[in-house]
């Protein structure tokens, strides 16, 4: 450091003796203290205008190849294609995911709270791909569910529950619900509902299993905002899907008219 200082100053100013003296005096001095004069801040987008570093790209390659192999691992079989068709009142893929979420989250929720989940409501947009007929791989599960959303149980009162039903009717989207909730709409208006086989069951509050995206008001599901309670169960929707696929051999999911329009 000291050396550089002396050299550079010598070159530019040619006042060697003085500089040497100064340099010497620095030796006995405490380190310099610096103060900020100016700060500039910004962010730089990392996009296709930047050519990738070749060394890093090569380093990633074997991991990428190994990962691709892992993604090809077959977990289950589906005799039919499970679809997420947007124009139907319900979808086979939606039903499958909602039901497995209920099944897999129920014990976790019960362990945490001693309560039971009343039903499931997820969003149709959360399912990003169909599950094609044939073998179902790890990669397929990631395609269906690329998001990192976690399951959460939101407790809402009866009024919010009615808001939920009204939302469902108007939205026309086949948002996945669990098999134990049956909804009947006519001209987008609720005609009747049944929960666990009981028609128009009125409860003080409803424990709804959903994902954290919706619980925070995503897809304008505002009835989930400011709930009576919310219980995070630290379980990703995709992990629930993967666990279910590992547990079963063959997917046996049909439409069961849980939503009628």
């Amino acid at each position: 450091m000291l050396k550089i200082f002396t050299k550079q100053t010598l070159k530019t100013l040619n006042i060697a003796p003085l500089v040497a003296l100064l340099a010497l005096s620095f030796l006995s001095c405490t380190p310099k203290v610096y103060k900020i004069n100016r700060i500039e801040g910004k962010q730089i987008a990392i996009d296709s205008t930047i050519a990738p570093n070749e060394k890093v790209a090569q380093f990633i390659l074997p991991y990428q190849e190994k990962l691709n192999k892992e993604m090809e691992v077959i977990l289950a079989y589906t005799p039919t294609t499970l679809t997420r068709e947007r124009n139907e009142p319900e979808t086979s893929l939606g039903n499958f995911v909602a039901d497995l979420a209920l099944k897999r989250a129920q014990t976790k929720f019960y362990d945490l709270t001693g309560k039971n989940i009343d039903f499931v409501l997820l969003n149709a947009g959360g399912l990003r791909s169909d599950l094609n007929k044939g073998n179902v791989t790890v990669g397929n599960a990631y395609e269906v569910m690329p998001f990192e959303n976690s399951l959460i149980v939101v407790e809402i009162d009866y009024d919010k529950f009615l808001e939920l039903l009204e939302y469902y009717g108007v939205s026309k989207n086949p948002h996945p619900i669990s098999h134990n909730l049956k909804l009947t709409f006519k001209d987008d208006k609720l005609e009747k509902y049944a929960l666990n086989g009981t028609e128009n069951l009125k409860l003080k509050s409803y424990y709804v299993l959903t994902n954290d995206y919706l619980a925070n008001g995503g897809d304008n599901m505002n009835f989930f905002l400011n709930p009576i309670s919310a219980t995070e169960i630290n379980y990703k929707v995709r992990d629930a899907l993967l666990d279910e696929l590992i547990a079963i051999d063959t997917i046996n999911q049909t439409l069961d008219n849980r939503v009628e329009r």
Partner: protein
Amino acid sequence: MKRRDFIKNTSATLGLIGMSNFPVYGFNSENKKHITVLHTNDVHSHIDPFPATDTRNPNQGGVARRKALIDSIRNENPNTLLLDAGDIFQGTPYFNFFGGELEFKLMSMMGYEAATIGNHDFDNGIDGLFKQLPHAQFQFVCSNYDFKHTVLEDSVKPYQVFIKDGVKIGVFGLGIELAGLVDKRMYKETKYLDPVGITQDVVKKLKNDEKCDLVICLSHLGYNYKTEKISDLKLAGLTQDIDLIIGGHTHTFLKKPTVTKNALGKNMLVNQVGFAGLNLGRIDFYLDESGNVTTDSATIIV
């Protein structure tokens, strides 16, 4: 690679910097210093760019590109510090299959110098994090997690002091409250301590004992909340002597770094750059020998 290519998306902030065309002083002077701080947060195991078919961020991000960008900035200014504000783990199958090994190895290749710990970095448990530490050639800093009686006790430091071109830079870390966010079985005996009290102590130490010229907080508290929950903006207003808070957790995309006031009413910066390695934050500090600076507050251009 020309610098212009990298700043094309920041045209809103570019105007002032570009037009004024500051003479580049500081490089050849012992009195004037230029320190560049680069930072990421919540990269969440995003190694590859998002696929071209991605609806939100098509063909954006990617570690190999980030490395190229970092190298070009280091060529421009060797006195560059590279930091990460946590949640390195979880978000792509790379983490599920390799447990964070690749993330740490790549960060080491990119030349990261310090990182703090995010809640998702506990996703394979404190033991899962500890297991990957040999792959991290950079220092983890966190001052408000008490790791006594855990495997991380000797690995994580409250702060680290870096010296760049004679300028002393103190970097300390802050983590978010884990209870209710992370399963206790994952973080085990880790104790969360009040970030505000800890910050006051650490900053005092960095300023008075370590004689730091710059103090940077690497925070995973989150940018801002509607509730009383402690956040980067709240922390800024409750403390003093921090020059820059680099935040994370809330995946906040800011159009530009936030200029805010500390407890003494002095301007300082809070920044966060979204998530998934879509952006690189860049803060340039121009310093002068203490006696040459007459004003107490620096000019901030964002």
